[in-house]
């Protein structure tokens, strides 16, 4: 596909601005009515989903050209998918996220590169992770857990830790805890250790599709070698990419893909994970974009006139993972859940995604602080989420703004309740 | 003016031109406005004649003052500032059309309340009227001057109940507003089902609003359509007397928000006694027996399930009354609900009810919001005290408008010939004090124009441009409002 293949999507924009707002039925206040961090932060229409489609159309029609400042507009976006979900409430014939991805790929092809992203991709190529950390240390987190190494053994369940979890020392206990919860439940669990590499999803989002495909092939071969029937990942970004992007690229992993919260929730339901200890806490839950609306499984592409596309093939966000994390959370004795105004398909983004954290950290933190304020407004004592990128940026944002709100990974609370002694940190 | 007379006669016919000083005398002075020097009076019979009059006025520099109502004149808007030809529109008095289905009447300026009410009643409709208008008051003029109606729920916007109009601007141009504007003549529009029901436009201006409240300085109105409402099949009036205005305000806010009740007004004891007294000499006595404040409201049933409608409204209103700590009664001293119902549906008896008790009166009225009324009441009391004016000679009338979002607040100073000077002083100083306290003199008659316009120079600048556009030669009611300087 190329940008020109999305002309019909782009020129389908009626400019109704639904892409800027929480779906209208769900607007509950003045304060939290908007859904798109980019337009909220930068204000020109060009920074909205609609605006970016218009830019693409304008370039294709020879009305304007791609240059550094237009590329910056295209990339000052978390790729959170909120605009797409809001648009799809109304439209069948526009795939906004795909247009945004296509615009990014177009920038890459044209050499309009954001230098931070270029550096990130270089680091990825060198070290197989988006943080530029040494590849050799990727498996260090698992020391002493006794996990199977899929480079030499097969396993039932392959655990793909993801880049952020593998290296962020602040999240290490959470990651180990997740694994221990599964091991305790008797799961036959394997990891690739130092051989694990990035899923490539972030590269895809940044427009570096070739790189993404290379990594997909890489992961595909590892999954095959492991013999695993299930792949579990705690990385929400990775989850979405494995669930949607891979099959869309034709990279069928041949196994079930689950997010760790889904898997833990399943274990809890089966009675294999017992949540006994009370964790008395009033919490609110942040839906990670890539676990929620962007976490829909890929069904099929529709190559015909999208006006005629069946509803079932419309990527509306509804089939994302919303209920399992909430079920798991509320099954913890003592935990009480109070919802924010923007949740589920119309959740506000944490700010970290789409290469924003790397290129414009101030924008990422601003976006996160918006969310923290929304969380605070519920009266919750803590914010819980299920994505390492969200946790990271929320904690950094809270530290920066001085907004006092503990941020937990959902697994932290599960560990506490299950009596796992790996100390949970907030 | 002799030459003018001939030229005027040429337009309207000599029988319709008058120099009778007795006749002209009623335009010499009204309320606080005096100094009028009406030279002649003409009675046009058609729009074409009015247009000719305006053209003549432009050519000859004549000041035309349009007037439609019978005396007494109380506001002074038709008392000319200096010399003028009075254009008496009372002869154009046709009730052109009464459309029962669309609840609308098309009337000329000479149609009075006394005339219109029974006609409309026969059709099963009712006129939306101010409290006790003068019998000979032009219905059109009343609406044109934005006089408040007593049923706030029907007062959706400040133009109500006036809908469409035919205008003759000070340029002599003819224009029609709202859906009367065209395409098509009235007859063509009627044939197409139109009822001149939409007051807005045409297109991207709303001249009816510009002309309303302009005291005849921008255009003359040849006819208008008037919004009518259904005559209730059951109509009950209640009184809610109370010592504290705050409680009645609370009750009023509670009731008007959900559009409960029909008529809704709040009167001080003095004002209620004046309104209701069958014998004006008993006003003092009645006022003394009444609670300081009384809400008067109506409850109606219409065609469908009228009893049920009245029942739920009574019940809900009773609940609101209870919450506000007040209670409804079916009568007040000297006045039953039935009598009040008649009062609310009729023009004033003769002599005009406000003039009846003492012989003379002056009104001070302006717009505000209900929650600010107590403040103005205390300012008024203080002013009366300062001038040694007996507080019981001041009546207060609070009329919620715009469905309760605003109120027309009216103080009436009652006086006899002995007190005239004192009343005049109080009028002047109280107007000043109330203006300073935040009174919005949206209908700035006479001396209020200076008070009101001093507050809003930008509005004045814009209004003068409007005046330049619609009355470039300043032939319409010269010297009124903020158009006191020579218009270029």
């Amino acid at each position, binding site marked *: 596909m*190329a940008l020109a293949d999305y002309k019909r999507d782009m020129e389908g924009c009626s400019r109704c601005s639904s892409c800027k707002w929480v779906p209208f039925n769900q607007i509950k206040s003045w304060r939290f009515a908007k859904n798109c961090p980019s337009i909220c932060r930068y204000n020109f229409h060009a920074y909205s989903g609609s605006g970016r489609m218009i830019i693409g159309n304008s370039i294709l029609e020879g009305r304007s050209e791609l240059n*550094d400042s237009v590329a910056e507009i295209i990339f000052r976006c978390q790729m959170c998918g909120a605009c797409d979900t809001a648009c799809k409430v109304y439209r069948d014939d526009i795939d906004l996220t795909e247009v945004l991805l296509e615009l990014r*790929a177009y920038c*890459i*092809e*044209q*050499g*309009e*590169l*954001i*230098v*931070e992203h*270029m*550096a990130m*991709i*270089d680091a990825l*190529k*060198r070290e197989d992770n988006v943080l530029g950390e040494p590849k050799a240390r990727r498996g260090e987190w698992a020391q002493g857990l006794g996990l199977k190494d899929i480079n030499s053994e097969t396993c039932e369940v392959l655990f793909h830790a993801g880049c952020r979890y593998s290296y962020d020392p602040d999240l290490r206990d959470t990651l180990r805890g997740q694994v221990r919860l599964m091991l305790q439940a008797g799961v036959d669990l394997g990891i690739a250790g130092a051989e694990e590499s990035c899923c490539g999803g972030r590269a895809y989002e940044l*427009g*570096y*599709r*070739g*790189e*993404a*495909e*290379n990594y997909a*092939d890489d992961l595909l071969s590892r999954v095959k070698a492991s013999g695993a029937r299930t792949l579990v990942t705690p990385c929400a970004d990775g989850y979405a990419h494995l669930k949607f992007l891979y099959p869309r690229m034709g990279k069928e992993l041949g196994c079930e893909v689950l997010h760790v919260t889904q898997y833990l929730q399943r274990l809890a339901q089966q009675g294999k994970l017992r949540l006994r200890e009370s964790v008395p806490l009033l919490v609110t839950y942040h839906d990670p974009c890539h676990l929620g609306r962007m976490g829909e499984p890929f069904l099929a592409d529709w190559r015909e006139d999208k006006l005629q596309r069946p509803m079932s093939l419309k990527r509306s966000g509804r089939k994302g993972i919303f209920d399992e994390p909430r079920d798991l959370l509320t099954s913890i004795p003592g935990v009480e859940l109070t919802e924010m105004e923007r949740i589920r398909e119309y959740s506000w983004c944490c700010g970290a995604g789409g290469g924003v954290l790397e290129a414009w950290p101030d924008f990422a933190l601003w976006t996160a602080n918006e969310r923290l304020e929304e969380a605070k407004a519920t009266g919750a004592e803590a914010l819980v989420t299920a994505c390492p990128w969200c946790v990271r940026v929320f904690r950094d944002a809270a530290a920066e703004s001085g907004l006092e709100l503990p941020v937990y990974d959902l697994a932290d609370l599960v560990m506490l309740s299950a009596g796992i002694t790996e100390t949970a940190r907030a | 003016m002799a030459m003018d007379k001939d030229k005027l006669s040429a337009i309207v016919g000599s029988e319709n031109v008058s120099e009778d000083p007795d006749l002209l005398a009623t335009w010499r002075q009204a309320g606080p406005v005096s100094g009028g020097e009406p030279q002649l009076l003409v009675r046009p019979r058609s729009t074409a004649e009015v247009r000719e009059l305006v053209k003549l006025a432009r050519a000859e520099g004549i000041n035309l003052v349009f007037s439609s109502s019978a005396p007494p004149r109380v506001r002074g808007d038709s008392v000319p500032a200096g010399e003028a030809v009075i254009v008496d529109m009372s002869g154009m008095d046709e009730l052109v059309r009464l459309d029962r289905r669309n609840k609308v009447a098309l009337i000329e300026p000479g149609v009075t309340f006394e005339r219109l009410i029974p006609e409309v009643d026969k059709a099963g409709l009712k006129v939306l009227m101010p409290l006790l208008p003068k019998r000979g008051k032009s219905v059109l003029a009343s609406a044109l001057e934005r006089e408040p109606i007593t049923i706030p729920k029907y007062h959706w916007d400040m133009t109500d109940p006036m809908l469409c109009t035919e205008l003759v601007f000070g340029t002599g141009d003819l224009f029609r507003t709202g859906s009367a504007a065209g395409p098509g003549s009235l007859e063509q529009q009627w044939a197409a089902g139109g009822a001149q029901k939409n007051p807005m436009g045409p297109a991207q201006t709303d001249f009816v609003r510009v002309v309303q409240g302009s005291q005849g300085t921008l255009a003359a109105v040849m006819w208008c359509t008037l919004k009518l409402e259904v005559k209730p099949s059951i109509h009950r009036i209640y009184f809610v007397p109370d010592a504290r205005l705050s409680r009645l305000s609370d009750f009023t806010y509670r009731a008007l928000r959900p559009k409960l009740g029909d008529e809704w007004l709040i009167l001080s004891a003095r004002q209620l006694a004046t309104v209701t007294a069958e014998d004006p000499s008993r006003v003092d006595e009645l006022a003394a027996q009444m609670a300081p404040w009384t809400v008067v409201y109506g409850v109606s049933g219409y065609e469908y399930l009228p009893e049920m409608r009245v029942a739920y409204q009574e019940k809900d209103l009773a609940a609101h009354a209870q919450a506000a700590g007040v209670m409804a009664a079916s009568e007040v001293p000297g006045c039953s609900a039935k009598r009040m119902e008649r009062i609310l549906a009729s023009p004033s008896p003769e002599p005009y009810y406000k003039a009846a008790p003492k012989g003379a009166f002056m009104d001070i009225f302006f717009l505000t919001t209900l929650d600010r009324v107590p403040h103005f009441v205390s300012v008024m009391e203080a002013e009366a005290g300062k001038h040694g004016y007996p507080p019981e000679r001041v009546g207060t009338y609070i009329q919620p408008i715009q469905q309760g979002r605003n109120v027309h607040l009216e103080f009436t100073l009652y006086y006899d010939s002995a007190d005239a000077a004192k009343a005049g002083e109080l009028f002047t100083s109280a107007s000043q004090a109330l203006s300073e306290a935040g009174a919005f003199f949206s209908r700035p008659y006479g001396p209020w124009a200076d008070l009101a316009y001093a507050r809003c120079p930008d509005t004045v600048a814009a209004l003068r441009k409007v005046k330049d556009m619609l009355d470039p030669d300043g032939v319409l009611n010269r010297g009124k409002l903020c158009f006191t300087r020579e218009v270029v």
Partner: protein
Amino acid sequence: MGLNIIVCAKQVPDPEGPPSSFEINEAELKVTARGIPPVINPFDENALEAAMRIKESHEQVSITLISMGKGISKAVILKAVAVGADASLLVEGDSLDASLLDSFATARLLAAAVARAGGYDLVLCGRQAADTNAGLVGLGLAQLLGIPAITLAQKVDVAGDGVVVERVLPDGYEVVEAPLPALVTVSGEVGDLRYPSLQAIKAAKAIPQTVLGLADLDLDPSTLGRVRTVALAAPSRERRCKMVEGETPEEAGRNLVLALRQDKVI
């Protein structure tokens, strides 16, 4: 006097992209890169690395990066320059599409650009471009400049008035010297180009950059040799998987060695 080094760098679609990134349009005789960025030709990166090593070991070395083509990515040049170049010179134009020019035309253009860059002592090029793999431009450029050329360098150093080059041979290397000015084409054995830090890339915006168009060069465009593509097709890739059988792992291993020998792989 210092030493002026010119490094010629061509921008190519990332050769590390998967095969699917190269969209071949047989009808329009076009290859379009999809979802991969332009990069500096890896051998040219090696040339830049060689220049950097000279710069590190000698006083007063100045490096100018020259690139020529259509739609040169500023970011890509920025990154290269950030490594340690002192200036850059870009010759840009829609008619400078590398796929339309023959190698000699490219060499002529570069020669004109080198002339514009001022004095030079050493010109470094990659041994070949990763897209066309022709390996002709460097030698053509030396011919046009009238200076000696040494190809396939794995190490480049400057000593006195000459350049000393370790030149790659199939079974080792030879050392070749030439007087300056000279041109050297550099091979991958020199080593990967070092990575600039992000801060250095951002700071590189301050490094002087000259952008020229075709019109700025003293060249008659009509005399430039053009490539005419006659046909274009993706090579058919056939994969045949042969299972090597054996009763025991040892036997399977033996059979594998035999098979490889048979195919002359070993």
